[in-house]
């Protein structure tokens, strides 16, 4: 055997899985200099009181923890400011670390103009799982926020249509990706089967969800004409 280098990735394999009971607030990652990342430096300067901490993961992924109260303000500034211009919201997700620790809502963004990546995280205490919706900034966040709501129970204030998206609409067992959720659900298999079969499937979809080939409202007038020509039904 070769001598072990301390801190090599393989040490973690020998140690085995780390219990989620460990309550230390170690966020991992490396301390980083904000000057390495233009947007982080700007955030620290402009929203000094809202930036909680800043770490670097995997050699180059800058992560900034921000105050959830100010999340909408910061995100809209990051999107609109020409020096940063994060026009692509790659992912909105969440992490539950268990043991009563706060749920983190994670925003992964990319700027196609500056070719720059940034991850923002908001820590939400378990008794106040609420944060502002960003559907008004990035339309893509609509279903992503629904997914986080469905699986973690985070409420997005101002979301136009906050329903479950993956689990059945009348699912009553809670939010499955929370650490306190038992792997096989809270009800017996018999009860789960009975509830599943009692679902009224058609009620869960609105008429516009089921119709194919309708023209979205937001499409520009020029494109509407193009769409109508190629539309499956109604072309003459």
């Amino acid at each position, binding site marked *: 055997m070769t001598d072990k280098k301390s801190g090599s990735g393989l040490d973690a394999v020998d140690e085995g899985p780390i219990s989620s009971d460990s309550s230390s607030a170690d966020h991992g990652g490396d301390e980083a200099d904000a000057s390495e990342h233009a947007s982080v430096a700007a955030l620290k300067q402009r929203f000094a009181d809202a930036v909680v901490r800043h770490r670097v993961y995997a050699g180059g992924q800058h992560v900034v923890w921000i105050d959830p109260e100010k999340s909408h303000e910061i995100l809209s500034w990051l999107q609109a400011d020409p020096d940063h211009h994060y026009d692509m919201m790659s992912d909105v997700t969440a992490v539950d670390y268990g043991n009563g620790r706060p749920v983190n809502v994670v925003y992964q963004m990319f700027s196609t103009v500056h070719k720059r990546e940034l991850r923002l995280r908001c820590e939400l205490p378990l008794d106040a799982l609420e944060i502002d919706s960003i559907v008004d900034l990035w339309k893509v966040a609509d279903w992503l926020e629904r997914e986080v709501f469905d699986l973690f129970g985070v409420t997005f204030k101002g979301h136009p249509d906050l329903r479950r998206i993956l689990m059945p609409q009348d699912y009553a067992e809670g939010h499955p990706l929370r650490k306190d959720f*038992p792997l*096989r659900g809270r009800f*017996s298999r018999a009860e789960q*089967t009975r509830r599943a079969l009692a*679902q009224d*499937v058609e009620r869960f979809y609105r008429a516009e969800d089921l119709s194919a080939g309708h023209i979205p409202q937001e499409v520009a007038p020029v494109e509407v004409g193009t769409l109508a020509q190629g539309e499956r039904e109604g072309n003459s």
Partner: protein
Amino acid sequence: MGLKHILPGGGTSATTGGIFGAGSPTFLTSKVDWIVNWGRRNSLWPMPFGTACCAIEMMASAASNFDLARFGMERMSFSPRQADVLICAGRVPYKLAPVLRRVWDQMPQPKWCISMGACASSGGVFDVYSMVQGIDTIVPVDVYIPGCPPRPEGLIYGLMMIQEKIRQETLTRHFEHRAEDPTRVAKPQVGDLEVAELSGPFGNSTQQDQLSSGEVVREGSTSDDLLP
């Protein structure tokens, strides 16, 4: 139904019997059986209910190399109204359970069901909150095909077992075999205890000792006990 009323002497009366023998086979019924079953078993139209990787193998079975059409599965019937065999290929989440049940309810009699692969038959590795633990809790299953996923040969063998099952059916009895209670439409196929038993004893990676009902079957055992 049809033949019984058309042929003279048909009927189900226990006293008269007629040529259908009132439950016991006669020369005529066994010959009618043979021709009816010959027709049925050689023109099975499968309803593919493919949800996962098993469906890939099902498609391979229908393609030229394995050629299901040799056995009379001339056409995959994508409408349950024209199908004879429901092939459930892949895992079924609870959200999909009412859809599977409705597809089964919509299929006309006589009908058969194949549970293809480990997930459809028992939940497989997906012993979790969202997954049906064996479709036999929802629809009656005739043939289970093991495998993860089964090879096309496995599916073909399963379909040939269905054919064998049809070959042994008799006109005098198969109506009662397939009697379904119309009030049980969209209800679980079996009772609560059976569901718990069917989905119970396997446990999961962290709780090997719990039935799905939460009842502990082996007190004090931990997942460490299962390490070699």
